[in-house]
C-alpha cells in the first residue's frame, strides 16, 4: 500500500514541475546585467517606479547604499555569489520584509511599502552580516 503511494507522490510532483517548466520556458526573459557596480551608491529616479536592482554576494550587497522616495517599491534581488543568502529590510531590529532561501543565481522580487526613515538591509545567515552583508537604505519623504 505504501510504496505505490510514495511513488505516485514523486511522479505527481515531477509531472507538475515539468509542466510548469514547459509553460514558463518562454516567459522567463527577465532583464539581465542590470546590477549596479559593486559598492556604489544607488538611487531610484524620481517617479520611475521601476524595480531597484540589488545584488547579493559574499559578503556584500551591490549597491550598499540606497536612497529612495517613500511609498511602494519593488526590490529585484539577485544572488550573484556562490552560496545561499537572504535580503532582509530592517527598521531598527524589526524585520520589515525579507527574501529567504536566495540560492546562487536566483532572482526574487520583494514589494514593500516604506515610510520615510532610515533602514538597513542585511543577510542574517550566520556570520554574513558581520562579514559585510549590510546596506543602508534612506527613504525620503514626499
Amino acid at each position, binding site marked *: 500500500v505504501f510504496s505505490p503511494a510514495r511513488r505516485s507522490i514523486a511522479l505527481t510532483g515531477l509531472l507538475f514541475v515539468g509542466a510548469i*517548466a514547459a509553460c514558463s520556458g518562454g516567459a522567463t526573459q527577465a532583464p539581465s546585467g542590470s546590477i549596479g557596480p559593486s559598492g556604489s551608491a544607488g538611487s531610484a529616479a524620481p517617479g520611475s517606479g521601476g524595480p531597484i536592482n540589488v545584488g547579493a554576494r559574499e559578503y556584500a550587497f551591490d549597491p550598499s547604499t540606497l536612497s529612495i522616495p517613500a511609498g511602494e517599491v519593488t526590490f529585484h534581488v539577485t544572488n550573484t555569489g556562490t*552560496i*545561499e543568502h537572504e535580503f532582509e529590510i530592517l527598521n531598527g531590529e524589526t524585520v520589515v520584509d525579507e527574501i529567504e*532561501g536566495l540560492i546562487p543565481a536566483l532572482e*526574487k*522580487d520583494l514589494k514593500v511599502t516604506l515610510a520615510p526613515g532610515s533602514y538597513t538591509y542585511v543577510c542574517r545567515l550566520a556570520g554574513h552580516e558581520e562579514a559585510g552583508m549590510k546596506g543602508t537604505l534612506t527613504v525620503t519623504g514626499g
Partner: protein
Amino acid sequence: VAAAFFLTLREGLEAALIVGIIAAYVVKIGRRDRLPMVMAGVLAAVGLSLAIGATVVLTVGDLPIVLQESIEGGAGIIAVAVLTWMLFWMRRQGRALKGDLERGVDVALSQGSMLALAGLAFVAVAREGLETTLFMFAILSSSGTGLATLIGAILGLVIAVSIGWAIFVGGRRIDLRRFFTITGTILVFVSAGLVAFAIHEFGEAGLIANTGTAFNLGGVLPESSPLGALLSGLFGYRSAPTPLELIGYLAYLVPTLTLFVFDGRLPLRPKAVRA
C-alpha cells in the same frame, strides 16, 4: 545546485522523519490497514501546498511576510502540540504492551487517535510544503537558475523522502519498546526545535520581540553545510539562535525529556535511552 539541494533537503527532512515514524508505528502495532489514512494526510498537504503556492504566485506574487511567518509559526505550534500528545500516547501504548513486544500486537487505535496521527502527517508536510512550493516557483521563474538548479532542488526532496522511507523500513525491524524509546527521544528534540522555530517565525512576523544572539556557531557549523542542513532539518538547529529561541528550546526540551525518560511507572534502561 548544491545550495538548492541542501535547502530542499533541510525543508523536507523533518516532515519525512515524522511521516516515516508515524507510518512505521502504524504498521508495528498491526494496523497496516490504516496506512492509507496517513498517506492521505501527506497527499492532502502536498496538494494544498501546491494549490496555495500556485495561487499565491499567480495573484500576489508572494505572501506578505506577516501572514507567511504567522502561518508557519502557527503550524509549528500545532505540530508541537500534536507531537507532544503523540509522544506520551505512544509511550502509554508501549507500557501496555509488556511481554508482547516481539510480535506485533493489535493496539486499540481509536478513530480519534488515528485522525490525530493522519493530522500530524498533514501538518508536518504542509508546514514546509508551502515554502518549498514557493521556492520551486522562484527557481522556475528566475532566468539565472538553470535546469541543474531545479534538479538539485528535486534531488534534495527525493533524498528527504528516501530518509523517511529508510526510517519506515528500519523502524519496522527493531522491537517495539526500542522503537518507542528511540523515536520518542528523537521526536522530543524535533519538537523542541519546532518551539524555537515558532518563536523565530513569530519574531519575524513582528508579533513578538526576538532579537539578539545567544551564541554563534556560524563559523563552525553553518546551516548551509551538509551536517548543518541535516541538524537544521531534523532538530531545528540554528547556528546563531536568539536568547528567546534558546530559552524556548530548553524550556520545552528539559521537562519533556525528563518526563519522557524518567516516567515513574516504567523506568527505561539508560542504555536504551542513549540510543
